[in-house]
Structures are given as structure tokens and as C-alpha cells.
């Protein structure tokens, strides 16, 4: 690889990339993100490689990451000359020969692809390239296009524009999608102030949760005194139930790197760090490879694009502490210390990492930057809603049919995400609430399902945008248990530096444990409320000051569930162990005996074909009977 210094060099790399994105021969791609691999993508990949070799086919086999719809993984995609791109879902090694058969013949027959793509969006180039010319081949006519798949219909992809579309191991493919052209433009045609103005005008707000205007932060950091400044990327993604940043780091690492270089140039920074969570080994590997490639091309290092600008990026690995996602704690951790937050009256844009001006942005924030520079602030702010430009990526998980990563324009109604993209609640159950904002956020009840999903509306409803976890809950989720779950999480993750958080959260946890354990006392609910106020006011960092949110928001919308626990000693959702009992329905039980064999305490008895009985004194409420009964005969009340 030789370095790239001119537009001509860059165009050459783009040409190479395009040839590998849409080659002149057949190409097969396997989604190999963490979730793809967990669903068995490696076996499928190996089987494909073996079958291709066995049949001596001239086929390119390569890896890509996930496009978002994780519930249909492992995903295999086929691109053949002059045919639409086809996606085969829920692949197994067994189905491989059949798919290869179709590939060899060049027609679909038998096992059907889930969707097809007729063209590919090159967002940063403002261009769509078709996969085929001329009429649509007959054999694929009844396969829906991706824009007709419910899950993708309402999505708009900016931050995840390349995820699942390119091979994350190839920098040329990233360049072919318009990558590093924004960097070229920024470094050779724009002044730092101009870049900052553009980002301010775009209205881009930090995607890490707080929603602070990114351009304003850059400007303050640019104006701060100091020769050495840093730009940092927050890839700590500590919110449990969220994995957007992992997907971008794994699937399109260059978009983050390019964004950071542009930001560094605008701010006047010399060094960059990406702080990645310990739990994401694949993200670290993919980022490291991408950094090496960018360095080899001269996008990192000295005199980038002959502009005289020097900059490089290193990776810092977290070690499993949620609080290190907080800006001051993250910087302390990068310095190699225990990551405790400090008071924020000294701003990190002035005194941050090693007491030097430091600008921290989230993974998704950085990934948006190249797109804004190439397409312009006006384009970006035309997407989304008032004061909330652009899109937001969410991990739509929990009790919903279509589980996966979705990128939607800001301001979309919540119900569109749940019912249209998510396809509603499985098993005909009732939608109850959505949890957003992670441990600092709250629950939005069904009654507010029309709410506009943006920073301000969610905040008003007592929740938060957060980094993008969206956990859907149905009638079998206990809201008191959810509040207890988050408080328990925060007690564990509190760094212990200040008293309101260290002691206060612990006491709240004790009260919630008692309530869930059937030992709730009158007055507990009021006590929780007054303690919450103390913690919100007194805690040093945002971990503590937002810790009561999950309790306050569930109290606001689901107070009756708390009352049921405290006063009636009942868990309406059937979750809290101390408040429920398992029994067998006389009507539904067929006496098949499955539960009897599975019960670990052997407390179920009954003759074949007769209704079984659970001995309440021995039952440990493990729930295995309910999980294994095919006739839904186990009653929980």
C-alpha cells in the first residue's frame, strides 16, 4: 500500500474498492458481527468455503457485518453480475448446498431469499448505484425489495450507512463508498472554523445521551488555551441492552476514524484516543486493523493530504466499569488510573485528559461527521425534527418481534418503531412500556406511544434518549422489578466517591428488594420519592444524579403496581418470586409428564394423562415447568 496524498490517489483507491464491492464475478457475503457469529455465521462461512472449493466455483467469499435485522441471522448475501443483491436469512450449514446450487445456476429456485436489493446507496457521494441494468430477472420478481420489508421501511441510514454493506476489513471499499473524501475536502478546501460552523449549522447533537450540540463543544475546545489538545471517542457503551456503538465499531470502523480526524483538524488536536469497552474484543480488533490501514494510507500520521496537519489515534481499552463512560472518569481511566469522576465545574474541553483541552464525542456522533461534511449541514438538518437533526440508532430489543438495530429519523412516533419496524409484541401479548436511556433513563408507558422520539420529548416524559437502548416490555414484565434491577445495577457500578450515590442508592435498593420480596411497608413509596430527591440534588456525577430516574418514572406511570406489591403483596406481572405461586390448570393439563421430569426439586406429581399437582412447600419457583409446558397449563399468580 502506498500513501495517498492527492485526489487522484484517492480516486484510484475508490476504483479498487468499487471493483471489490461489485466484482465482475459472483460474490457471497456472510454477516460476521458478534451477533452473527453467535448465531452460527462461522459454520455457515466454513460450509460455503468448502462447497465452493468442492465445486470449483469462481466465487469471492467475504465477510461483512450486520445490517441490523439480527433476528434473521446468520445472513448470507449473494451478488451476481447483472442481478439484484439477494439476502438469504437464518442460514445453516445444511442449507448451503442449496444456495450454492442457485448461485451456480444463476437463478432462484427452491429456498427463497428474504429480500432483494436493486440498488445500493452511496450516501456520501449522493448517488445510488444499481446492481443490474435492464429488466428485473423473472425468477426474483416476487422477492420483496428491502424497502418493502417492514423492518427497513421507515429507516434512514446515516451513521450505519455502511454497516453490513461493505467488508469491514477493506479500506478501499470504505473509500469507494465516499469515505475519506470528506477528509480530503475538509483538509484541503475548508478552514477549521468553517468546519465547526458547518457542524453547528447541521444541528448535530451528541449521540452519547446528553444531546449537547457537537459543534459548540468543538468550538469551545478550539478556543481553549494549550498547544496539545485531544479528541476522544467514547466507545464504552455501558448501557445494558444497547449495542449500537459496537455495531458501528465492528462494521464500519473507518467512519469513526474519519470523523475524528476531521474533528481533530477543526479543533486543532494532535492526538486521539478511542476508549472501547472491555467486553467488545471484535470491535477492538476491527478498529485496530482500520487504524493500521489508515496509517498506511497516510490518513493518520504526518502531513495528511499534504495539508501540514499531523494526527494519530490510539485505542484505550476499558476494564469493565460503567462509570468510565462518564467523561471525566473516562479520561482518568485513559490516564491509567481508577476511573472516578470529578466535579465538572472545570470543563474537560479546557482541562481534560492530562489536564489538556479534550473533546469527547460518542461513536455515533463521530460516524455522522463525514456524512455532514460531504452532504452539507442543510441536508443533515432537513432530516429529523425541530432542534433534533438527523437520525438516531436504537437497539430495539426485549419483547418485540423484529429484534435488531434500527436507525430512524428523529421525531418518529414511538409506536412506529414498536409496531411497524418492530412488528409488535410476540405471542399476542400486550405492549406495556419501553425503557430508554439505560440506567439513567426511564420507562415510557403505552399511553404515550404517540410520543415523538427525540431528545426533548423523551426528557419531558421523564425518560431520556440515552445512547439508544430501547427495551420493549409486555404485560409479563414487572415494573417494580425493572426499577429494582436498574437500582441494583447502579449500586454495583457506583464508584463510591460521594455519599448520596454510594449510600443513597444502596438504601433505595434495600427498600426495593423488600418491596419485591413481599416485605414492603406502608410509607416505602414515599420514602423512595424523598430519597430520590436527595440523590438527584447531591450526587457528584450524572451516574448518581440520574440514578433515581428508573424509580421515579415507573412510579409516575405504574404506581398501582408498587401499591399492589406493598399493600396487597401481589406481583401483577407474575415476576417477583416471593409474591407468586405456581399451580397447574386442571383445564389445560394433559398429564404429559414433561414438567414432572424437569422439576429440579421433584415437587410435581401426577399420573399419566391426569392433571399434575405442584407441592407448594417444595417449589423453588424456578419456572422450568412453565418454560417446558407445551400446553400453557402452568398458572403463575
Amino acid at each position, binding site marked *: 500500500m502506498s500513501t495517498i496524498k492527492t485526489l487522484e490517489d484517492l480516486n484510484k483507491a475508490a476504483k479498487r474498492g468499487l471493483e471489490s464491492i461489485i466484482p465482475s464475478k459472483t460474490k457471497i457475503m456472510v454477516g460476521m458481527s458478534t451477533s452473527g457469529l453467535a448465531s452460527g455465521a462461522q459454520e455457515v462461512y466454513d460450509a460455503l468455503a468448502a462447497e465452493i472449493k468442492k465445486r470449483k466455483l469462481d466465487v469471492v467469499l467475504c465477510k461483512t457485518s450486520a445490517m441490523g435485522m439480527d433476528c434473521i441471522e446468520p445472513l448470507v448475501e449473494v451478488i451476481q453480475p447483472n442481478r439484484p443483491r439477494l439476502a438469504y436469512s437464518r442460514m445453516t450449514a445444511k442449507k448451503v448446498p442449496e444456495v450454492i446450487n442457485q448461485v451456480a445456476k444463476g437463478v432462484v429456485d427452491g429456498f427463497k431469499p428474504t429480500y432483494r436489493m436493486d440498488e445500493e446507496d452511496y450516501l456520501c457521494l449522493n448517488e445510488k448505484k444499481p446492481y443490474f441494468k435492464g429488466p428485473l430477472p423473472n425468477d426474483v420478481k416476487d422477492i420483496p425489495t428491502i424497502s418493502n420489508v417492514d423492518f427497513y421501511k421507515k429507516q434512514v441510514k446515516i451513521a450505519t450507512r455502511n454497516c453490513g454493506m461493505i467488508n469491514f476489513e477493506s479500506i478501499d471499499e470504505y473509500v469507494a463508498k465516499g469515505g475519506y473524501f470528506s477528509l480530503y475536502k475538509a483538509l484541503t478546501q475548508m478552514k477549521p472554523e468553517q468546519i465547526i460552523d458547518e457542524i453547528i449549522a447541521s444541528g448535530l447533537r451528541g449521540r452519547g445521551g446528553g444531546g449537547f450540540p457537537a459543534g459548540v463543544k468543538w468550538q469551545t475546545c478550539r478556543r481553549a488555551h494549550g498547544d496539545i489538545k485531544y479528541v476522544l471517542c467514547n466507545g464504552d457503551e455501558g448501557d445494558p441492552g444497547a449495542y449500537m456503538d459496537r455495531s458501528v465499531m465492528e462494521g464500519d470502523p473507518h467512519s469513526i476514524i474519519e470523523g475524528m480526524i476531521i474533528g481533530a483538524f477543526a479543533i486543532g488536536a494532535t492526538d486521539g484516543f478511542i476508549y472501547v469497552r472491555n467486553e467488545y474484543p471484535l470491535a477492538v480488533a476491527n478498529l485496530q486493523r482500520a487504524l493500521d490501514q489508515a496509517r498506511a494510507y497516510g490518513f493518520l500520521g504526518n502531513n495528511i493530504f499534504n495539508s501540514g496537519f499531523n494526527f494519530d489515534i490510539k485505542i484505550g481499552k476499558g476494564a469493565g466499569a460503567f462509570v468510565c463512560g462518564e467523561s471525566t472518569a473516562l479520561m482518568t481511566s485513559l490516564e491509567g488510573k481508577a476511573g472516578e469522576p470529578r466535579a465538572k465545574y472545570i470543563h474537560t474541553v479546557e482541562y481534560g485528559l492530562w489536564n489538556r483541552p479534550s473533546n469527547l464525542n460518542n461513536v455515533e456522533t463521530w460516524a455522522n461527521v463525514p456524512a455532514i461534511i460531504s452532504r452539507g449541514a442543510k441536508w443533515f438538518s432537513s432530516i429529523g425534527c425541530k432542534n433534533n437533526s438527523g437520525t438516531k440508532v436504537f437497539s430495539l430489543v426485549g419483547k418485540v418481534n423484529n429484534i435488531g438495530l434500527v436507525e430512524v429519523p428523529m421525531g418518529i412516533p414511538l409506536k412506529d418503531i414498536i409496531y411497524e419496524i418492530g412488528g409488535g409484541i410476540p405471542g399476542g401479548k400486550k405492549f406495556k412500556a419501553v425503557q430508554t436511556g439505560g440506567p439513567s433513563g426511564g420507562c415510557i408507558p403505552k399511553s404515550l406511544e404517540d410520543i415523538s422520539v427525540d431528545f426533548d420529548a423523551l426528557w419531558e416524559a421523564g425518560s431520556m434518549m440515552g445512547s439508544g437502548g430501547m427495551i420493549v416490555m409486555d404485560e409479563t414484565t414487572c415494573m417494580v422489578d425493572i426499577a429494582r434491577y436498574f437500582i441494583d445495577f447502579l449500586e454495583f457500578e457506583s464508584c463510591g466517591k460521594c455519599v448520596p450515590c454510594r449510600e443513597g442508592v444502596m438504601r433505595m435498593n434495600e427498600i426495593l428488594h423488600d418491596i419485591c420480596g413481599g416485605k414492603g411497608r406502608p410509607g416505602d413509596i414515599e420514602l423512595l420519592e424523598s430519597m430520590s430527591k436527595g440523590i438527584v440534588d447531591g450526587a457528584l456525577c450524572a451516574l448518581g444524579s440520574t440514578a433515581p430516574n428508573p424509580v421515579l418514572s415507573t412510579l409516575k406511570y405504574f404506581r398501582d403496581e408498587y401499591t399492589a406489591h406493598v399493600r396487597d403483596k401481589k406481583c401483577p406481572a407474575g415476576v417477583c418470586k416471593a409474591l407468586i405461586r405456581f399451580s397447574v390448570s386442571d383445564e389445560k393439563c394433559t398429564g404429559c409428564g414433561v414438567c414432572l421430569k424437569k422439576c429440579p426439586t421433584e415437587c410435581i406429581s401426577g399420573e399419566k394423562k391426569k392433571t399434575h399437582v405442584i407441592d407448594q412447600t417444595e417449589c423453588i419457583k424456578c419456572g422450568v415447568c412453565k*418454560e417446558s409446558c407445551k400446553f400453557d397449563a402452568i398458572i403463575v399468580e
Partner: protein
Amino acid sequence: MKKAQTMDKKVKDIIKKYYGDKTAMIAILQDVQEEFRYLPKETLSFISKKMDVPLTRIYEIATFYNAFSLKPRGKHTIEVCLGTACHVQGASRLIDRLERDLSISSGDTTKDKMFTLEEVRCLGCCSLAPVIRISGNVHPYLTQDELPKILRNYK
């Protein structure tokens, strides 16, 4: 004696890899842990002497971050995800079952040193909830019923 020497040698190499940089302490401890599966006491005193960092500082880091363990771990670490997505899909039943079947509490290691049971808060595979990870392999969409069979494959 011999064992102690190889241990020192390995740690020395790790420190060298980071040029003895004190700000790389977290990365150094991570490498040491990867080598020995936990942080043996002797390695910490060795690092303290070699790098001229007070032992209390090193302990502070080793106890602050959840990824570090001061206790020996088993051959396989079972990480049960208790993230929000896994929690609403019944992850607590998985941990209860594992605690019962392995006769240990979360955080402990079985007598035969085969398994260490740990709770983690989200593995980033929330779409596959509930999940557990054993020695780096993610097992998706689990029910407690499947656990015994999965564990047998790791013996």
C-alpha cells in the same frame, strides 16, 4: 522456585511491551490477567517493584475494575448476561439454575477448577437475549433446560 521465575519472566515481557509506561497500567494488568486468568498476588508485587508504583495504587486499579480478579479462576469462565434485554427475557432463571447445578454462587469457582461463574451486564448481543458466554463463545436464546447439555461440551 522455577514456577516463580517463569511467572516473573512473563510479567517482565508484558511490562516491556508497554515500555514500562505507568499510564498503561490497566493494559498491563489486562495482559497479565489474560496470561494467568487472574492477577496472582506475586505478579502485582513484582509489577510494583519493577515499575516503581506503590502496591496500593495497583490494588486500587485491580479492585476498581470489574474485569480483574484477584482469585484464581477456573478453566472456563461462564459469563451470564444480566443486561436489561437479557433480564426481561428471564436471565435471572439462568443464573439461579447454574448456581444450583454447579453448587457455587456467582463469582465463585467450582471445586474441580473447571468453571467460574460470573455475572456481566450486557455482552452487546442483546438481540439474542438471553445469552451466556463461556470461554468467549456466545450461546444465544437460552432456556435453563439447555444449560446442562451445553456445560457438558466444555468438560
